[in-house]
């Protein structure tokens, strides 16, 4: 028992590093760093590449990562996020998610995707903890203790830095009241940069430490940041001590549960407990988790350039009919099949449009709903294809109540915290539900035999194509009609101003629950069709990162337009089609991630920021001369004699000022 508790404390220590890093940047910049896990992953790979490929020993490569690479990355992130401080929270979330996707897709491209087992950093001769080594036998205990000591040391470092130094006072002042800090000459940008640097260095440390324990695995390291979400929320994203304590408690809970769950009675509960805790915390804190609502600039929508108000229903249905006629004529069966799969994907994307674009509720869980439909079909029609419609129906019947349950947090949460709740749901599906072999068929998934709709067999590619086209067209047309009616108006009220809606007497509870339920149902139908086209259902294809991918594709395609969902499907098609050069396959997700970041930043954020930086540097160089302090004290400066000279009008002074000021033009 003690053994498990100690091991739990060790694993909690790595969550502590991550949650403190996340809390630190949220406190000072108001940005929730979803990308933390991706950053940790990237920096861990950089370190191991330097050490094992370039054969620099750790005394060189570790400082190189921690003192050069991580701080530079931190500065870059700060430059990306600073201009977003005043924009809508959805923009911040989407940019952070885009950066997460960027690193997760970048790492395998640069470094390869094979998990590697690693030696411990520093040879045993430097760090030998005999007692621990004897107790737990070797490496696990040793690096665990090392992690714990590092985490505790960094926590103390942070405490001293924040409470005992002038920089710390300035940081706390910026957290307390950013504007006022600026007014008394604190350069809050500098403070922001420092905290992003610290947070990124923390990410590097936690990534490297984790990789010594569980190997270098592109799946494992990002999970670290996801585990640490619950402790971060426990401290309401501002308390470092609570984040630290919560992480340790979580680690202990996990390892103790693992001890009692060796038989797997409650499938894999130890990996899903952080996410159950996260949802629980979000519900308990509920409305107390208020974020500052900044609605200055909302997320730009590229769809606007392609679809104007005037795209009408007949036009949309017409192009669907045209596609129905032309595609089977123009393309071979396998391509039709790929198009069918992309359209099933578009149906899932359609729910993202309705939820995120129309109702303003960011959901990172739509593929989890699709999984419900997919597994229902797999179980119903896996062996008896004629039960396919029954499978769809079964999925719908499950998805609707689950949708209502996922909608519940939206009654009390919005923006970031709702996004976190949906993410927690997706992760519970991944780690808990999918771990029941009876549901998912284990690692291999479940095969789906040839399905049929009553007497019509759906074996042929063309028939699958027509089915997907018909379902997509009907659902899209339905969504289009609803958007223009009272229901569409109700959704816009939820998105644009819940405050105004409630003072008009609108009850938004039903609206929110219904939209989550209906979107869950539609996503489930999309999932059923995916199961049909893929002919097998693999939980990997419905994991949280696929939901993230759908969200990003919809942002690129145009999140408030039905055409955006179709575009998302088309972008996915690129991944499916045969004959596309592999380089496109490799770089497409990366391009999507970068595009999302650029879209959210309105294309001009970075250059603008760089320009301002340069300008302010100039201003500092030309810093105004300040008279010495003595000159400005009462004793040395005579009070203006007699009645002060009245100011006649602005004009006389104007004449002399331009001559002076031309010297100091910084722009």
């Amino acid at each position: 028992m003690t053994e498990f508790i100690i091991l739990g404390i060790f694993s909690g220590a790595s969550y502590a590093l991550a949650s403190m890093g996340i809390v630190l940047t949220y406190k000072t910049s108001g940005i929730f760093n979803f990308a933390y896990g991706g950053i940790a992953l990237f920096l861990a790979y950089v370190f191991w590449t330097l050490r094992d490929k370039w054969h620099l020993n750790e005394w060189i490569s570790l400082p190189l990562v921690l003192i050069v690479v991580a701080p530079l990355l931190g500065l870059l992130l700060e430059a990306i996020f600073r201009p977003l401080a005043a924009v809508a929270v959805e923009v911040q979330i989407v940019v952070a998610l885009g950066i997460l996707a960027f690193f997760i897709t970048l790492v395998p491209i640069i470094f390869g995707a094979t998990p590697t087992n690693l030696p411990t950093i520093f040879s045993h001769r430097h760090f030998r903890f005999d007692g621990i080594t004897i107790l737990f036998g070797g490496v696990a205990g040793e690096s665990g203790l090392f992690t714990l000591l590092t985490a505790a040391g960094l926590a103390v470092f942070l405490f001293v830095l924040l409470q005992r130094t002038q920089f710390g006072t300035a940081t706390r002042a910026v957290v307390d009241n950013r504007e006022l800090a600026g007014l008394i000459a604190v350069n809050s940008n500098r403070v922001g940069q420092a905290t992003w640097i610290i947070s990124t260095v923390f990410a590097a440390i936690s990534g490297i430490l984790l990789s010594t324990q569980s190997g270098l695995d592109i799946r494992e390291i990002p999970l670290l940041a996801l585990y640490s979400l619950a402790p971060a929320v426990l401290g309401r994203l501002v308390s470092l001590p609570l984040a630290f304590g919560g992480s340790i408690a979580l680690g202990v809970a996990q390892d103790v549960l693992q001890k009692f769950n060796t038989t797997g009675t409650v499938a894999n509960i130890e990996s899903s407990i952080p996410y159950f805790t996260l949802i629980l915390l979000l519900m308990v804190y509920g409305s107390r988790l208020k974020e500052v609502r900044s609605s200055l600039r909302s997320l730009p929508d590229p769809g606007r350039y392609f679809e104007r108000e005037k795209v009408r229903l007949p036009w949309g249905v017409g192009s669907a009919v045209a596609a129905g006629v032309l595609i089977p004529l123009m393309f071979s069966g396998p391509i039709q099949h790929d198009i069918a799969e992309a359209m099933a994907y578009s149906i899932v994307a359609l729910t993202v449009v309705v939820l995120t674009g129309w109702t303003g509720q960011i959901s990172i869980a739509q593929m989890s709903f699709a999984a419900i439909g997919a597994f229902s079909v797999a179980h119903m029609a896996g062996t008896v294809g004629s039960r396919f419609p029954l499978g769809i129906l079964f999925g719908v019947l499950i998805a609707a109540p689950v949708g209502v349950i996922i909608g519940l947090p939206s009654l009390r949460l919005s923006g970031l915290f709702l996004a976190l709740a949906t993410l927690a749901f997706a992760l519970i599906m991944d780690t808990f539900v999918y771990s029941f072999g009876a549901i998912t068929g284990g690692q291999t998934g479940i095969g789906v035999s040839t399905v049929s709709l009553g007497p019509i067999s759906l074996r042929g590619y063309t028939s699958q194509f027509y089915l997907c086209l018909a379902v997509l067209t009907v659902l899209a047309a339905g969504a289009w009609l609803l958007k223009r009616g009272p229901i569409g108006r109700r959704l816009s009220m939820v998105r644009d101003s819940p405050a105004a809606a409630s003072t008009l007497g609108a009850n938004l509870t039903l609206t929110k629950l219904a939209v989550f339920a209906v979107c869950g149902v539609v996503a489930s139908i999309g999932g059923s069709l995916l199961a049909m086209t893929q002919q097998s259902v693999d939980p990997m294809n419905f994991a949280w990162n696929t939901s993230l991918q759908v969200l990003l594709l919809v942002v690129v395609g145009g999140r408030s337009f039905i055409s955006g969902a179709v575009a998302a499907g088309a972008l996915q098609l690129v991944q499916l089609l045969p004959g596309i050069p592999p380089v496109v396959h490799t770089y497409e997700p990366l391009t999507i991630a970068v595009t999302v970041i650029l879209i959210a930043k309105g294309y001009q954020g970075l250059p603008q920021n760089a320009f301002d930086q340069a300008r302010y540097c100039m201003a500092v160089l030309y810093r105004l001369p300040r008279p010495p302090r003595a000159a400005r004290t009462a004793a040395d400066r005579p009070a203006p004699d007699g009645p002060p000279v009245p100011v006649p009008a602005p004009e006389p002074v104007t004449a002399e000022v331009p001559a002076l000021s031309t010297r100091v033009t910084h722009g």
Partner: protein
Amino acid sequence: MAESTTARLPVSVAAGGPLLQVSEVTVRFGGLTALDAVDLDVMPGQITGLIGPNGAGKTTLFNVITGLQTPTSGHVRLSGSDINRWPPQRRARAGMARTFQRLELFVGLSVRDNLLSAWESRIPGGVFGRRSRDGRELADHVLRRLGLQHLADRPAGELPTGLGRMVELGRALCTEPKLLLLDEPSSGLDHVETEAFREVLLDTTAGGPDSPAVLLVEHDMRLVMEVCDQITVLEFGKRIACGTPDQIRNDGKVIAAYLGEPAG
């Protein structure tokens, strides 16, 4: 709708009592007394102004009336019923409508849809399009009175502040309110826009038993003095004066509150 509510009105209103009656409302935040036993009446068919220097408690009182703030003691009555514990939605359905100091438009909807959505919110089940023709007619009628017909299909988010304020007024009117609460409607408006708003306000609320009573919280004194029938003045959470614009303008206490006692 109007008939059914009149039938249930208590005697006080039928006999010409106030539509909204704020009596002895006190709000304390910790040790700070934001409102101290404030009384305020809004009579049917009248425009009542609520003014006072910064920090006098106008916003707190407004929040008490709209239900965002629960008073420490005292009562708010609408048509005679005590609404202290009613949530904003219920107040809205009982005939209260408001505008916001910072625009709270449904920016993604067209101007007409903003108005329609208000009408639909008022009717339980309005979403399902029963009587949708009525709503459409009402929205078009209000648009015409506001002079916004030509903008009906424009997205509300694209309008300048002055027009946006009008759309908010129209949206409130589409709930067919008995009491209209306007929170600093002229803020952010220039002279011309304020003038236009004044015209529309007088036009949509003047005359007829159907037109709503108005409570106007406002700092543009010119507007207040021109449109209000009655004015209540707050300072330091207390009511220091109450009367017609002329009485208020010449009230020594009000002048002192705004311009300060001669110091020293």
